[in-house]
Each structure stands twice: as C-alpha cells, then as structure tokens.
C-alpha cells in the first residue's frame, strides 16, 4: 500500500467501523468467555474501540517510519506484522483496566477476537476495498 497520513487514519477508522464491527458481532458468541453474551459484547467492543483509538497514534508513528522509505510505501506484510505491537499494547491496556467493559477478559478470547478482526481488516484493505471505492487506492487510502 502507498498510504498518506490522512488515508491511513480514514482507512483504519472505516474498516474497523465496518469489517471490524461485523466480525466482532459474529465472533464474540464463539469466544471462550464465562460471562453473559452482553458482557462479552461489551468487552469485545471495548477492545475494538481501543484498537481504533490507540491506532490513531500508531498510524502517526508508522507514517513517520514510512518517511525513511524511498518508495514512501507500506509493504503488505507490515500491515500484518503490526498486529504484534498493537495487540500487545491493547492487551496491556486491558490488563490495566483502561479498556471500558473489558476488565477480566481472558487472554485466549482476546487473541482470537483481535486476530480475527486484524486479519479480516488486513485482507479487505488489500483487495476487496477497491471494489466499492474505485478511487481509494489512488488517493493514498483517503475516502473523503
């Protein structure tokens, strides 16, 4: 991908609000959680919100790192590997009770939910996104 900063932020928020929400709705009932479904959903959406919010900061950092690349590109695999640092930070936030609704969330449930959402968003950003939004890839990932 060849994102601009505005494109990064817009694409992240859009994909988490669409693909992220749909996948969260679908995957949450299947998570290994000993709690009523409502509680599980509160935790999952809390995590999704944290990924979006903290991600805005991460995107600034990635944009800074991208400046050292001659091509000003962001290779596809970086989009997958950044799950590690982002996932870790969100998990630390969960453990520190900083994520609303996610107190006491099991590690396994977090990993499954976060992984499914991340891979889903990554796959959509690397192909299907171009179908409805013809101009998106030529505008650095901007939708507006």
């Amino acid at each position, binding site marked *: 991908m*060849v994102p*601009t900063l505005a494109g990064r932020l817009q694409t992240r928020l859009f994909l988490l609000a669409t693909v992220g929400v749909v996948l969260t709705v679908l995957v949450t009932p299947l998570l290994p959680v000993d709690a009523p479904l409502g509680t599980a959903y509160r935790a999952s959406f809390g995590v999704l919100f944290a990924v979006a919010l903290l991600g805005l900061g991460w995107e600034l950092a990635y944009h800074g790192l991208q*400046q050292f690349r001659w091509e*000003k590109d962001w*290779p*596809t695999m*970086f989009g997958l590997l950044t799950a590690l640092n982002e996932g870790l930070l969100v998990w630390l936030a969960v453990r520190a009770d900083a994520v609303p609704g996610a107190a006491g969330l099991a590690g396994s449930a977090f990993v499954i939910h976060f992984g499914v959402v991340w891979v889903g968003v990554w796959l959509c950003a690397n*192909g299907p996104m171009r179908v409805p939004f013809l101009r998106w*890839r*030529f505008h650095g990932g901007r939708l507006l």
Partner: protein
Amino acid sequence: MLAEAGIPVHDTSLVTVGGGIGSFVLVDYLRIAGAPTSAIRVLSNIDHPWQTYRYLTRVSQIPDHERIRSDSGSTPDNIWAFPSYAVREAFAARSLRGFLAPLWQVATEPVLSDYFTPRIGAVFESMAREADRISYREMLVSGQVRMVRRRAGGGYLTIITPPKGHAPTRRVAFRSQHVHLGVGYPGLKFLPDLQEYRSRYGDVRRVVNAYEPHEHVYDELIRRPATVVVHGAGIVASRILDRLITDRDRHQAGTHIVHLFRTYVRGSHGPSVFMRRRGGDGWAYQGFNYPKSVWGGQLKARMRTLEGDERKALYDTIGGTNTPRRRRWQAQLARGRHEGWYVTRVGEVERLAPGTDGTVVTRVRTADGMLEIPAAYVIDATGLVADIREHRVLADLLDHSGAGHNPLGRLDVERTFEVRGTRSGPGRLYASGAATLGGYFPGVDTFLGLQIAAQEICDDLASQGFVPHLGVARSVSQWARWMRNQPV
C-alpha cells in the same frame, strides 16, 4: 469544406486516437461507467490494444512466459484490480505450491520476496477477455490518424487514412465532441554515437537497439564466442544481460559482456536521509520506474501541487535510469564478475568505428583516459525517447491547436489529463501515456498510470454529463458483471 473535398464525415461523441493500451483502458472505464459503443470510436493502426506493447516487449526480451515489471495490482483488464494478478495466478494453479507461491510473494513483497509481477501472456489473455466483454471491436476503426483539429462550432475533427481498399476515399473524418490521444511513444531515439556509426558505415547488424528485432545477435553469440557491449542501466539492459547470461548457461555460449555505464551508481544515493534510493554495482535500484507512491500515495499527492521548476526538480530526484533489484539478476551478475565474463566500464562514448575481423570498436572516454573496446556486437539498451514533435499528430497539435510543452518538454496536460490550451467550445481534448510525462502525475507510462489517467478522464467527462458518475453502487454491480464475464 470536407464534404466539398469529398471526405466523408462520421459523427460520434468521443474519439480515442492510438488504440493501444491507453485507449483500451479509457474505453474500458467509459463502457463500465455506462457509455454505449456508438458513443466511442477507437482510431488505430493496430488490431489489438496490446499489439505494439507485445512487439516492443518481445524484441526487448520478454517472451509470453516471462514476467513484466508492473505489479500485481496493475491490471489493465480490470479497473478494480481485484482479483489481482497474483490472486488469479494462485487460483489458476494446479498444485498447492503453485497456489501458495504467488500469494506468499505478493504478501511479503518487497521485503522477503521480489515484487510479484505477472506473466506477460496472462496479461494479454486477460485483456483479450475484457476486450470481448466490452465489445471493443465494434468501436475500432482501422487507419492512420493524420491530425486532430478544433472545429469552429466546438468539438474536434479527426482525419484518418483508412487502409487501402477499406474505404472509397483516401481520407475519412470523424466529428466528435471529445478526443483522447493515447499515441504511445513519440518515437525511439538511438544514442547519437551509435546512430552516427550506423549511418556512416551502413551497418545495422552489429550495432542494434534493444527495441528493434535483434535475435541474430543471440543466434550468432551461441554459434561462436565473442564480446558484446551493452549500453544502458535500466530494465531493458537487465533483460538483455539476462538473455545473454541465460544463453551462456543453457547453450554454452562463450559470450564476454562489457557493460558500459555513463553514470556508475556505487551505493545508496539521494538528497536526504528521507530520500535515499538503493544502488550498487553501477545500478540504481527501484521496483518500478518511479517510487511506488507516485501511483497513489505521498509522492502522487505532492507532485500534484507542484508547478514549473519545482515539479522538474522532484522529477529529477525520483527519476533517472533504474532497474529492479531482483535476486536472479544479482546472482547472475555476481557470477559473471567472479568468473570474469562480465565486466563494467564507465565513461562517455566518443565514437564507434569498424575494427579488424569484422568487429566494431567503441572508443570510450573514461576517468583514466581513452579506452578502446572491440566487440562483435553493440546493443543500445538506453531507451531514449524522441521529442514529441516526431509524432505527426502531436506536432500538428503544437502548431495549430494551442497545445504546449510541460516542464520536461512533453505534452502539457491538466490534472484531469486535458491537454492545456486545446479546449474547443464544450469539447475537450485529453491525452495519456508516455507523451504526457512531466505533468502533475509522473507514473503515466505504465499500466497503472494509464488506468489512473483513464479514471481522471472518465471523472472529468462524467462531470460534463458524458457518462454517469461511477459511484459505489455501479462500481460494485459492474464488478459483479466482470467476475461473471457478462457484458457491461
């Protein structure tokens, strides 16, 4: 006036001149956006959009099974680039390994793998399928376009000479509101010293251009060991070297290669830590002919805001001759250097002259003095492009229709690819491709660049009501039709 001269006049809404891949991708966009075939005429001297491209790639050593330079998402047959060529190759594979290999490559490029690039044969097949789907042939008119002129009443007249026997008159005119020019390269230019040798000694066998047929060079090098001098440091030079080395390996050719650089790149280079391009062993390395973000990211956005000298300066920084750093080529040249059959020389060629035993001697001015290199063959792979005036339609536009030059000396176009200064009433004249290099968008001379230009032109035409705006709903429904190979 035309009727008095006995020239028949046909009416249509939009004429595209050229009929190569530039015309094809524009027509594809317009048809998908909703233009009927009757609204478009493609005036061309070739039968298939990929014909000229195929000729040039073949002679410059890319046969149908080989891979080209453009990436997985540069899909001239599919405006969405989904599924991309890598995904299509995976799903067409007959083994698990064949399925996984292209997906792994495209997911890990360019860090763990070289860029995925499609096989040229697959690209042609996909374009043929799309041409049928959009009824391309219904819009095709054969002939040689002579000129495009503005009409007093608005719009344009395009004059074409049909092939002999195809029309009752020598000339036919097309009257249209809009015109698009996708005429490709204005022409190829030889290095002046090589051209002088060819003219003076009438020898076109020993001194050849990579973009003209030159199979005889490889045939003879397989038959007897000899030295060949290669000029150039771009993708075509890489291809020529690959062919020469492959012939050494497969056919035991005893070829000795002298690679001549005018500028020798020793390592990473660029104006700042944020703008440093990789390089080494003489070459500047880059996946594509410009940094990737010119096709959609930061550099595209930045260039769009620059004018005149500032734009030229950025072109100078990101341009220049370069080639992809492919693992195969790195290994080939390292082996050649180690075994002594591949050597590099740096300098300015002073002149070429016939030597003894039917050789041609290249005299090179190097930092250490004059060097004479006798060789059986000299291959010019510099790929110099001629002035846009060499193309008669473009020259006529410059002289009679108000077109001008951009900061790099080629055809000056707006951000919408409208040729600046040529508007005719409600009619607009557009151009895309190599002739427009130097404009607000640098990557013009590539599949993806042609698609970006086509999108800009289609959107501009939509804003004038020529076609409906290609929005989310139509894009999705048309994509579904593409997937099922249904007509637009």
